[in-house]
């Protein structure tokens, strides 16, 4: 957990002794030879002070506003208490401010000395930026009294700042399951909105017969209404493929992830309000999967994942695939269609079966990564497909920062899952790189739209609800 290193800061002090001793010998001054003891003494001093103990710290973070508006200032107070029974003589704390939130007042850093049971509070303010922002673990450095040994460790206290407005309606495509809900379909039947008139067929309900027409003309016609049904939607957040998140161009920026996660939260709330079934998936190096479900408690579950699951942290490094046990979440309530996918999450040695990847509907290897897929995207897509039930549609939240994600959409569409893409635009900026990225993104959006996939181009500073409305109007 903690990383100990020697700073070596007292290393040069013996040179003073050598210098004083040499001059003392040359000039024949015994007092200078006495002076040489100062250097020797300070070289020994760091050996005599005890090493810094493993810090036992309790961190508590309070924020003045959990859901600030864009640009609103949020006061943050971090209290660090020494829970151990030893003095921390040189304690340096740097709070893990989310990368995208600028500190506007004060500083999230502090150096202090804490006795047992003592505490210190760091106060500062950050400015809200659109998106869901997670605080990272606070970095804690302790040094001994002489500063010769330094111990680095992190203390985690999860806090989320969620900035953005809710959306009235999610973007859905016209494919439904047979449950009554809010989605208006092109199928005629029973419902509220008039669909068409057709000739009476035997067995039609009597109350749907147009009696006025029968009275005037004598022929029996039936009124059909648009059927309103519930959709099953998996919200899929693109966290990128790269294991090195700061590699230029390879992975969507932290900004995109923060906005995508916030958008997923808002869309899930809209879906829950409309009684649709919804689930959650991460398309990224760390898998995360929440099966379909309905209702408020399911929404709470989903929000908890978005807030705390490492799969949605942009700084995730997926170097630990061996112990990356899938975070497959089994909710208390039974999920109807995708139950087979959540049955098996064992760790330990499992037999990989490359040939069966994608062929079986359920995960064959307990959620392990599928072998045989070439790129990261292929693997992620295969994993996602294995989990999706029939008739499930997908809302993909992606900055469209790489070409492979277009392939993912194509694969999913071909497999019969209608895809809607909500794409936060993070390419705003004047640099050449940004302009190139914007150009490429536009090309990808056009390619997707040619496939018939609705793409919501969500500009920075734009209201997500408006962006959704504008796009979905085109497809009605």
């Amino acid at each position, binding site marked *: 957990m903690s990383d100990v290193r020697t700073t070596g800061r007292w290393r040069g002090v013996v040179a003073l*002794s050598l210098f004083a001793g040499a001059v003392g010998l040359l000039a024949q001054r015994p007092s200078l030879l*006495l002076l040489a003891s100062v250097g020797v003494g300070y070289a020994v001093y760091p050996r005599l002070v005890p090493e810094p103990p493993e810090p036992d710290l309790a961190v508590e973070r309070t924020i003045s506003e959990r859901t600030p508006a864009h640009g609103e200032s949020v006061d943050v107070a971090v209290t660090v208490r020494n829970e151990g029974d030893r003095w921390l003589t040189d*304690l*340096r704390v740097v709070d893990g401010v989310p990368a995208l939130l600028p500190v506007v007042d004060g500083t999230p*850093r502090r150096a202090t*000395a804490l006795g047992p049971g003592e505490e210190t509070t760091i106060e500062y303010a950050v400015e809200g930026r659109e998106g869901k922002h997670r605080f990272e673990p606070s970095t804690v*450095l302790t040094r001994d009294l002489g500063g010769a040994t330094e111990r680095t460790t992190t203390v985690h206290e999860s806090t989320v700042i969620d900035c953005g407005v809710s959306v009235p309606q999610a973007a859905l495509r016209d494919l439904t399951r047979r449950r009554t809900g809010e989605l208006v379909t092109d199928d005629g039947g029973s419902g509220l909105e008039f669909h068409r008139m057709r000739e009476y067929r035997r067995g039609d309900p009597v109350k749907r017969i147009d009696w006025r027409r029968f009275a005037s003309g004598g022929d029996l016609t039936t009124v059909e209404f648009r059927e309103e049904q519930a959709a099953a939607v998996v919200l899929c957040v693109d966290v990128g493929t790269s294991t090195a998140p700061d590699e230029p161009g390879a992975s969507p920026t932290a900004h995109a992830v923060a906005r995508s996660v916030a958008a997923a939260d808002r869309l899930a709330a809209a879906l829950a309000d409309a009684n649709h079934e919804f689930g959650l998936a991460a398309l990224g190096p760390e898998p995360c999967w929440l099966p379909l479900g309905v209702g408020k408690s399911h929404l709470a579950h989903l929000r908890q994942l978005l807030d705390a699951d490492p799969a949605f942290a942009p700084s995730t490094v997926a170097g630990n695939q061996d112990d990356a046990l899938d975070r497959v979440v089994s909710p208390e309530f039974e999920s109807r269609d995708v139950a087979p996918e959540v049955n098996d999450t064992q760790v330990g040695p499992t037999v990989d079966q490359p040939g069966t990847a994608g062929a079986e509907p359920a995960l064959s290897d307990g959620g392990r990564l599928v072998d045989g897929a070439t790129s990261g995207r292929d693997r992620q897509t295969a994993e996602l497909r294995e989990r999706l039930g029939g008739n499930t549609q997908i809302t993909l939240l992606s900055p469209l920062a790489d070409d492979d994600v277009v392939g993912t959409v194509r694969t999913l569409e071909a497999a019969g899952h209608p895809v809607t893409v909500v794409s936060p635009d993070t390419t705003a900026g004047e640099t050449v790189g940004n302009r190139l990225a914007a150009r490429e993104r536009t090309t990808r959006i056009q390619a997707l739209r040619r496939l018939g996939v609705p793409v919501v181009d969500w500009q920075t500073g734009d209201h997500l609800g408006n962006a959704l409305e504008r796009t979905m109007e085109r497809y009605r």
Partner: protein
Amino acid sequence: MTSLAASRDLLDRPTAPGALLAMLAGFAAVALLIEGAGQWQALVVDIVGLALCAGGYVAWQRGQKVPGSLAALAGGVLVLVALALAVSQPEAMTERLELLPGLLGLAVLLAGLLPVRAGWERRLVTTGAAFLFVGVVTSGVVRGASEIQLLAAGVASVLAWDLGEQAVSLGGQVGRRAQTHRAELVHAGGSLLAGVAILAVTLGVAALDVQGLSLAGFAVLLVAAFALVVATRQ
């Protein structure tokens, strides 16, 4: 300059309380060697000059470029005057020499702690403290001070380096804007206690009539001490 750029500027600078403590230790390292009134004069002028330099630098940082640079210029002139005083004022030739490295060291130490050049903080602090120590050794060579004065001044010069380095390290990790005084005071207390202990032990050894010992015997003692230090490193 936007506030963001300003805060980034301040991030890596040596912390103010640590810099102040280091300068105080530096002043002590010079003041402990002083015997005559002429030397006091030189030190006081030097301190005023350095304070003007520091004040001018701070004013310049806050955007008051003209008064800031004027103050710094005046401070620089005063430092030169102090050096001239140190060389010319005392009557004995030996006293003229012994203050020069110390005054120069104070100026270099301050330059490192402001810092005049980013990235050079440690180098300048170390060089300044080394000058202070050279001043102490010079004083020992010209027999300008007693043993206890020499030892105390030696400890003070090491403290000046230690506190300066601590200020640089804290500045790099938590920045000048952060609150750091508690950590720095505790650290300074530890180093000061160590210095007092070293002083006491050395004077105790000296009291065992070491003066009767030959110089060669002293040298052997020193070599033994080094061997001990090397042994504790393993």
